């Protein structure tokens, strides 16, 4: 069995008196895909931001490959695109590449633009992009430094069906290549397609964990419904 890439132990997050997360334990191994499911307000995005290093847990520990958290090994796609509207698509990626100290950010930017089907609009300002195009560019941004762990918060938002299929295919390839994925989504079918494991959050705690063989769409939907029994 591969060693854990990201390990979370007893992660708690409080905002004043409000408990957003309470005692989350989680392991993610290299090349593994994890789906994080749950209703609105369950703490999925907070958990992902803690995993990314954007938010500090109130208590608990977080290790990357057995050591300190390493932002350089993590790619993150949040609810927002993290893009600069005045820069072109290509400039956005080159800028991000320079933040990650890539040797040739321009070449990497061109490669990613081609992969995301954005080569023809590479020199257009990101501020003029449709939601779907901005989302594709944002996914390219998250991958610019070829991170070993990709954290994706609702990555299918705004994508049309061909772009969503292309993203699924790309994420499957990344997983095959050994990248670990953690995916927050409401779409159980896509979670079942991509992930080997799933955790279902409810009110900031893990309500259920679903492993390998149970992770077909129907099994996951049943587990999700069971975990959320009693929710309004």
């Amino acid at each position, binding site marked *: 069995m591969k060693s854990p890439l990201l390990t979370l132990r007893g992660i708690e997050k409080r905002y004043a008196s409000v408990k957003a997360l309470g005692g989350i334990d989680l392991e993610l191994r290299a090349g593994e895909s994890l789906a994080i499911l749950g209703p609105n307000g369950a703490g999925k995005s907070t958990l992902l931001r803690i995993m990314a290093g954007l938010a500090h847990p109130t208590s608990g520990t977080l290790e990357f490959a057995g050591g300190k958290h390493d932002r350089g090994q993590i790619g993150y796609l949040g609810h927002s695109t993290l893009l600069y509207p005045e820069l072109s698509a290509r400039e956005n990626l080159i800028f991000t590449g320079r*933040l990650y100290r890539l040797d040739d950010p321009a070449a990497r930017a061109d490669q990613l633009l081609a992969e995301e089907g954005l080569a023809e609009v590479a020199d257009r300002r990101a501020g003029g992009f449709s939601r779907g195009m901005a989302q594709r560019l944002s996914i390219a941004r998250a991958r610019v430094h070829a991170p070993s762990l990709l954290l994706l918060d609702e990555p299918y938002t705004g994508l049309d069906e061909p772009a969503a299929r292309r993203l699924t295919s790309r994420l499957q390839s990344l997983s095959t290549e050994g990248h670990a994925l953690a995916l927050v989504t409401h779409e159980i079918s896509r979670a079942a397609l991509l992930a080997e494991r799933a955790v279902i959050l409810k009110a900031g705690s893990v309500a259920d964990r679903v492993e390998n063989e149970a992770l077909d769409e129907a099994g996951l939907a049943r587990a999700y419904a069971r975990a959320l029994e009693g929710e309004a």
Partner: protein
Amino acid sequence: MNVALAILWKDLVSEWRARDRVVAMLIFSILMAVVFHFALPGSRPEELQALTPGLLWTAYIFAALLGLNRSLALELDNDALAGLALAPGNRGWIFLGKATANWILISLVQAITALIFAIFYGVDLVPALPGLALVVGLGTVGICAAGTLLATMAVRTGFREVLLPVLLLPALFPVLAGAVEGSLAAVQGGSIPFESLQLLIVVDGVYLVVAFLGFDYVLDE
């Protein structure tokens, strides 16, 4: 250092295309010149010469507040600030890039503001230019060092427009003390007091070091 240069490039290119920060600061400075013109009717030339450094720095400080607030507010669009926080390595370089971009843009506005004041009040600033440029440049380093750090702290709060002046203005008292004294000496044709330059250099150094080291913490949620 490459990260600082990347941020500097991004901020200057974004401003060149949007032109919102510089234009807003300039309009504000022109309005300040007009307000002072009405507030000080019938002043004699020598009185205006003595008042000009103080008036200039009042305009500089409030225009800078406007620019600094906007500089960080731009990073909130699309949560780009999180994108910066995710970058590996020492976040001090991010501070340095942003502070340098702020210094360049604010300095540009200050140069045009000085020209406007000179025209409005009939003060000949040309002989004072080298000394004035040195003092204003040093003073602006302090404004941008403290301002970039504090604007980053204030930007995620719901009342950033109020919080930044409340935090920044007290921090700028020593900068103002050195800058106004030095500017007055430059405008009156004398040599700039060593104490003014010394104060500005020490305050700049302290603010740069504190902000470089502290930026790592203020970028976190």
